[in-house]
């Protein structure tokens, strides 16, 4: 892939894209896609032992970056902004503190940051990134669900055709795949811990699916 557009950082800053802070003002409460499920009450009143633990990492900043993996200037700019480089190898992820980057395709990455930092980071990208690229704040479009516990692999095996053995799916690996007739971007964060990025419109369906599929193991809600 070649860069048609070889603007310097200063030149791209001059033709700046409109960046909008998507967070509602302080009078309006931000609501995650699983707001209606009232996970907080379930966490305090529900069972505290079980084979599956569930948590929503709500209201994170989701930034979709498309750029050229062979452009060293762009890779360096990402590292300047986030303090961590893009994972170039297919199906890998990088993480540093609160920031994580998932490989989605050879020229596309999903960057997760704390929700309150999304605007600032997006603005920094506009200042730092040279050349032809696209950065979209898609925070409202999806949410992150974390599944863990001793039966988590068995639960996921009911939902996805992916081989979840540690040899085939080591910690840090990322796959975009089918998940219980929906789709997800799944990342292994521990031997028995996975993070699913799911579409907002499918999150209620997946929440219901997880409750049903975890009946035999016991479901513990964390909040």
């Amino acid at each position: 892939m070649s860069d048609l557009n070889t603007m310097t950082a200063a030149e791209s800053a001059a033709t700046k894209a409109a960046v909008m802070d998507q967070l509602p003002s302080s009078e309006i409460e931000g609501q995650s896609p699983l707001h209606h499920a009232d996970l907080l009450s379930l966490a305090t009143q529900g069972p505290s032992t079980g084979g599956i633990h569930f948590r929503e990492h709500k209201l994170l900043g989701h930034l979709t970056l498309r750029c050229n993996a062979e452009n060293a200037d762009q890779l360096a700019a990402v590292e300047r902004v986030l303090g961590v480089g893009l994972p170039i190898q297919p199906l890998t992820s990088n993480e540093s503190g609160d920031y994580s980057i998932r490989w989605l395709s050879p020229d596309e990455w999903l960057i997760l940051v704390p929700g309150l930092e999304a605007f600032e980071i997006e603005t920094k990208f506009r200042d730092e990134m040279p050349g032809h690229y696209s950065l979209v704040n898609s925070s409202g479009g999806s949410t992150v669900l974390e599944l863990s516990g001793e039966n988590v692999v068995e639960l996921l095996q009911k939902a996805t055709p992916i081989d979840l053995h540690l040899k085939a799916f080591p910690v840090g690996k990322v796959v975009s795949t089918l998940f219980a007739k929906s789709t997800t971007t799944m990342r292994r964060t521990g031997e028995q811990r996975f993070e699913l990025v799911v579409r907002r419109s499918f999150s209620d369906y997946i929440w219901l699916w997880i409750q049903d599929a975890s009946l035999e193991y016991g479901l513990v809600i964390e909040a």
Partner: protein
Amino acid sequence: MLHIYCPHCAEYRVETEFHAAGQAHIARPLDPEACSDQEWGEYLFFRKNPRGLHHELWVHAAGCRKFFNMTRDTQSYEIKEVYKVGEKPSVVDSPAQQKAMSMETVSEETVSGENMSGAQS
């Protein structure tokens, strides 16, 4: 269920993650305005339907969402190779088979056409 290797994800995935997107290597005419109705119609609507080797376009719809090409035997369903868009297939019909295929096309065309000499040459 086919087990398909995605050249972008660099691993095998199940068929349900993919969609077939038809014949590969269809070049858009460089100057559409200069095409005859027949040339344009053939570009838009007419596709090969071989029994045997076929070069197809596929998309990893539920995965990386990238397109790639596949050489597949439509009779045995065997996948001979996958390769990225812009690359050339390494598995192709032998020249004799290609000739036989093109002879077939010519004779089919001439059934309704006027020039029978094309089919015999």
